[in-house]
């Protein structure tokens, strides 16, 4: 029935890594993800895992280490944040296009500048087109649960996967958590036995070929298909995880959306705060709901259309700005999804919020619903590109 514990998000992810006992970890420390390789290296030093821990000189090298190890046939992991993720970017594309299912724990943090160590999603969103699967966690429990499901998902479609949680908010806050017994974790995650790998001397293999224009697009189309296929795999693994733990996961989570007329779409820890606002407003008789995106890559187009097709108005909550003088990344993809599906009745606005660790409170989210209510009543959308709780 699970093990009751209280852990920070970083401890929970490190503990999941220990239970899985992967083959190789290449890592370089950066706040707020530093604790993950720190705790894990303790497990290595204590002989609790037999992972090869490679302390490298940069995140670029950390990801290169993972690429080499995974190509060799090993299960490789890393952890990073913020500019560390930026510094990995070149190699993130290589990992994805070489179809290597590496698992990366991302603890989301703002990018400079101004220099800031606190949470937003600009790091993860900055690499959203690198070809990695991206799962986001609301709580410590979800950070742990997502990590246990990550390898099953990535390895099924031969794509690397990052499990993202919010820096400090979940990574350092200690919460009650239910851990899965290690024997069950091992049975659920399984071993990694790729068909082809570099250290297989019976079948020589070349990885990372040069692709001339005559081949490059065919490779990319096949890579795109793997991401399309990942949608069903994420749902299947999330359902199977639910059968084991009672906690079922999909691409999105609908919260009090049954008859909702006003909805917000949100990612990560602020969903918890927003659910509290929804509860308060529901108690006051307002028909409000919330959609939480768990999988940003693949983008859950069909599920979001289904969830939002009957609302009058919605707000996309972006914890990152694209600086396109228009909107954040989630609003762009959400509205594109609705338009492509012919769903044009709901009015939608975008809120950039919580940048660089700016506190997001229940009242902040209530103000968003108040704006949505105004739009629903007047039909006037006004400015769609907004900053939440900004001092004017």
């Amino acid at each position: 029935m699970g093990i009751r514990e209280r852990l920070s998000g970083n401890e929970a992810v490190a503990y999941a890594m220990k239970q899985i006992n992967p083959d190789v970890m290449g890592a370089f420390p950066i706040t707020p993800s530093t604790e993950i390789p720190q705790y894990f290296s303790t497990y290595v030093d204590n002989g609790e895992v037999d992972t090869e821990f490679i302390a490298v000189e940069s995140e670029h090298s950390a990801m290169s280490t993972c690429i080499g190890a995974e190509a060799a046939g090993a299960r490789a992991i890393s952890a990073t944040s913020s500019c560390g993720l930026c510094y990995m970017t070149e190699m993130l594309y290589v990992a994805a296009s070489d179809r290597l299912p590496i698992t990366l724990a991302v603890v989301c943090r703002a990018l400079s500048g101004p220099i800031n160590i606190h949470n937003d999603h600009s790091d993860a969103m900055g690499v959203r087109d690198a070809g990695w699967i991206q799962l986001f966690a609301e709580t410590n429990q979800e950070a742990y649960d997502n990590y246990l499901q990550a390898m099953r998902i990535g390895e099924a479609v031969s794509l690397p996967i990052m499990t993202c949680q919010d820096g400090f908010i979940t990574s350092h806050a200690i919460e009650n958590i239910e851990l899965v017994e290690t024997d069950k974790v091992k049975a659920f995650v399984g071993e990694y036995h790729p068909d082809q790998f570099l250290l297989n001397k019976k079948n020589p293999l070349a990885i990372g070929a040069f692709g001339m224009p005559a081949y490059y697009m065919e490779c990319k189309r096949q890579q795109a298909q793997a991401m399309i296929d990942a949608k069903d795999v994420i749902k299947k693994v999330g359902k199977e995880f639910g059968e084991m733990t009672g906690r079922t996961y999909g691409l999105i989570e609908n919260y009090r959306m049954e008859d909702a007329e006003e909805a917000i779409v949100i990612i990560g820890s602020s969903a918890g705060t927003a659910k509290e606002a929804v509860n308060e407003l529901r108690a006051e008789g307002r028909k409000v709901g919330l959609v939480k995106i768990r999988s940003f890559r693949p983008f859950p187009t069909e599920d979001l259309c289904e969830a939002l097709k009957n609302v009058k108005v919605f707000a996309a909550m972006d914890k990152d700005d694209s600086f396109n003088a228009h909107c954040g990344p989630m609003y762009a993809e959400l509205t594109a999804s609705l338009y492509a599906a012919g769903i044009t009745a709901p009015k939608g606005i975008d809120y950039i919020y919580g940048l660089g660790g700016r506190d997001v409170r229940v009242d902040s989210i209530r103000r968003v619903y108040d704006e949505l209510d105004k739009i629903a009543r007047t039909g006037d959308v006004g400015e769609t590109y907004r900053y939440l709780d900004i001092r004017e």
Partner: protein
Amino acid sequence: MSYMKAKDINEHITWKEITKGCEIYEGGTSETVETGDWRTMKPVLHTDKCKQCLLCVPCCPDMSIPVGKDGKRGDFNYFYCKGCGICAVACPFGAIEMVREEK
């Protein structure tokens, strides 16, 4: 999933058929790829001047100067030669002349 050799991968291959991540299920596949087709200058060997000193052989960055079992160099392998001209500079006897490639 297809486990193709380099010779089976050509410009008619579809995205469903191409190997995962452009993997090639054998080693040493550069031998099968013509890398000399963008040459603008090419080396020509004047056998009357060549002393078979073989200084040119290790200077070639590719595999364009074959050496036979008799220990003597043969004519250029233009399948790989990109016309860099290093061999012509290395030759102490003026036995290698760079000429314009005509196609």
